């Protein structure tokens, strides 16, 4: 019984992992790049000055700059949000606003999102180089591209569930999880070596993979599992909404009676005195500014977590009303920390690199799993012509995705430097370049023998990444020598990382080259069945 349980779990592990393996790989790679999203932004907006934290301005200066801007630009808006400048993640003062819902259906609701100079209150100059930046790359790991974001998000939830099932069954079918950490037989027959690589990558980074997958799932919990909360209130949506208000947002109805907005500084000062200083404040959310019903809520920085405590004030009198703290409930606090761990916004430079490496290990886990699957079936498909067509497709997808996606991302960076600066829809074209390149990389393996396709695409990847610093030097002033001289480690690290990836691809290509030669020399005769040789 125990054996058959293990066997069925092994089957589930194989298919849960394989069904969406290329999308999982895509999610791992693009999501991992997200840990350096603002750094990639900086490289891609080459002409913009390095983001300088405007923390030198006082909170009061920031507030008056933001309110001045919003009063001019967003009068009569339903909500203003002011994010105070903080660190890497929010280097500038930023304001968002949202107009009332449009009266005619089909019209788009007006919104604004601006980065402001903390002292002058004027919006910062737009980047000279119009680009999707690291944000567009990172957003794809949950919103994909070319399809509706909401549908993509639902789909991504399913894919993440498959990943989670893959992880849990992977642990179940391991008998000696500790021993496997130290087992790597690189010189062993290919498929055994792929299995060892798969085990090594997965087991070594298992805590990270479990965390990142379950927290990823938690992002979709309100999308996929709302029925639990609703059902607990007998599916009475109004009652549920009322009860869940505490963990949701401040909701205010407009009265239509104009009233001047209370000065914000005393409100912020009060919140700061409760939370031990102005540093603890993340931002302000003003609902119905200029209306008698106005509310101001001040949100607190949440440490690792993403769900924050808020103090709510009357927006006309400035009087303190209530504190909304969803994280006072243990499971919400736990979820908040999980989501925060997923985003890693709290992480400093060193931890950020660990995140990056762990994410790449995750991508490697998916990739080695997929390669192992096909390595194990290769001989069978040689004997069976029908089998071989589907198998060929899987092999081509493996090669075209595992190597093709990184090459496509390099193409995205190339296009950032090479597309004409005045091109209409430039960020869109950067993305098109990525997907066109990926598409070509998917087709290429169909035209070449397997190992040749691996080797040649690996060389292409080596060239594509190693050339990035060169193209950068040819097209901008922010090349490696200048960035090193200026001590701009963010820019320099981008170029150096590109070189490192070029080197890794070159070593991979060389390694495959050696394997291809020995395989050709040996040219084995086909064998009747898998089982006798396995």
């Amino acid at each position: 019984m125990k054996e058959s349980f293990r066997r069925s779990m092994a089957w589930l592990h194989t298919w849960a992992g394989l069904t969406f393996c290329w999308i999982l790989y895509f999610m791992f790679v693009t999501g991992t790049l997200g840990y350096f999203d603002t750094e990639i932004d900086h490289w891609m907006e080459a002409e913009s000055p390095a983001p300088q934290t405007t923390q030198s301005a006082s909170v009061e200066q920031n507030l008056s700059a933001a309110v001045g801007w919003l009063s001019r630009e967003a009068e009569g808006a339903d909500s203003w949000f002011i994010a105070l400048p903080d660190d890497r993640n929010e280097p500038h003062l930023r304001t968002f606003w949202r107009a009332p819902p449009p009266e005619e259906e089909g019209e788009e609701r007006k919104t604004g999102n601006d980065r402001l100079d903390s002292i002058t209150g004027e919006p910062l100059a737009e980047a000279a180089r119009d680009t999707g930046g690291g944000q567009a790359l990172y957003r794809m790991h949950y919103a994909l591209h070319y399809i509706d974001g909401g549908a993509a998000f639902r789909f991504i939830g399913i894919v993440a569930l498959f990943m989670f099932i893959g992880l849990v069954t992977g642990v179940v079918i391991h008998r000696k999880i500790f021993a496997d950490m130290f087992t790597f037989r690189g010189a062993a027959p290919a498929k055994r070596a792929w299995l060892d690589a798969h085990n090594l990558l997965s087991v070594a980074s298992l805590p990270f993979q479990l965390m990142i997958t379950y927290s990823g799932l938690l992002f979709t919990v309100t999308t996929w599992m709302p029925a639990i909360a609703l059902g607990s209130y007998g599916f009475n949506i109004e009652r549920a909404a009322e009860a869940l208000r505490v963990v949701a947002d401040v909701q205010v109805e407009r009265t239509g009676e104009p009233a001047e907005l209370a000065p914000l500084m005393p409100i912020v000062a009060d919140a700061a005195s409760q939370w031990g200083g102005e540093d603890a404040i993340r931002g302000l959310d003003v609902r119905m500014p200029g209306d008698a019903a106005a509310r101001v809520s001040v949100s607190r920085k949440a440490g690792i977590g993403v769900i924050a405590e808020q103090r709510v004030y009357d927006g006309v009198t400035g009087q303190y009303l209530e504190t909304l703290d969803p994280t006072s409930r243990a499971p919400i606090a736990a979820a908040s920390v999980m989501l925060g761990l997923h985003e890693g916004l709290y992480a400093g430079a060193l931890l950020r690199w660990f995140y990056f490496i762990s994410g790449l290990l995750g991508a490697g886990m998916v990739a080695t799993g997929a390669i192992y699957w096909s390595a194990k079936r290769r001989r069978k498909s040689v004997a069976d012509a029908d089998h071989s067509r589907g198998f060929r497709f899987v092999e081509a997808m493996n090669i075209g995705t595992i190597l093709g996606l990184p090459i496509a991302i390099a193409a995205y960076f190339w296009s950032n430097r090479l597309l004409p600066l005045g091109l209409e829809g430039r960020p869109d074209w950067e993305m098109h370049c990525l997907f066109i390149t990926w598409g070509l990389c998917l087709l290429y393996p169909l035209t070449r023998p397997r190992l040749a396709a691996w080797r040649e695409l690996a060389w292409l990847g080596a060239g594509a990444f190693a050339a990035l610093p060169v193209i950068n030097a040819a097209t901008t002033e922010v090349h490696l020598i200048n960035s090193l001289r200026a001590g701009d480690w963010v820019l320099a690290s981008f170029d150096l990382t590109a070189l490192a990836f070029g080197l890794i691809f070159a070593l991979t290509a060389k390694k495959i080259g050696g394997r291809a030669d020995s395989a050709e020399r040996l040219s084995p005769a086909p064998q009747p069945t898998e089982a006798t040789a396995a």
Partner: protein
Amino acid sequence: MRSCLNNAQWCVNVAVPPPQPIRAIARPDGPTPGARGAQANPGANYSVHDDLTAAFRDGKTMVKKTSRSGRWHVASRVIAALIPGFLVTNTTGILLSFLIPGVDKLTAIATATVLSYVIYTAIILWIFSVERLRTVWLGLLGALAVTGAGSWLMYTLEAAA
């Protein structure tokens, strides 16, 4: 682990040869030429994985469970996971939100919601580990009835109170 994956073919309708004694697999008579030979002779270097492989190649575990193979069994289980499995996840969550002791209602709801994917995963693992399809479907429908009725009862009691 490797051999688990090999043996996992029971569900994909692949012809598998009759069980063979372990020795015959691991050490075929006479040398085999070329790379395939290297694969057929795992050799003296292997330890841990060979243990695993040997344990698995035990004749008993090699017996094919033909009754469980076939596309229909897979499709049926996938449907069971998608529809009744998902519904049971939700009804179990709702029931949990009433039953978790010692906390207020919102905390209980949040706990059940945060755990929902753990519950769903456990249900899916169960669906794919049970031998008979009838057990899968009866089990799921039974669980749906019990957790659904339980949730309704708890909700009615709460509303009356």
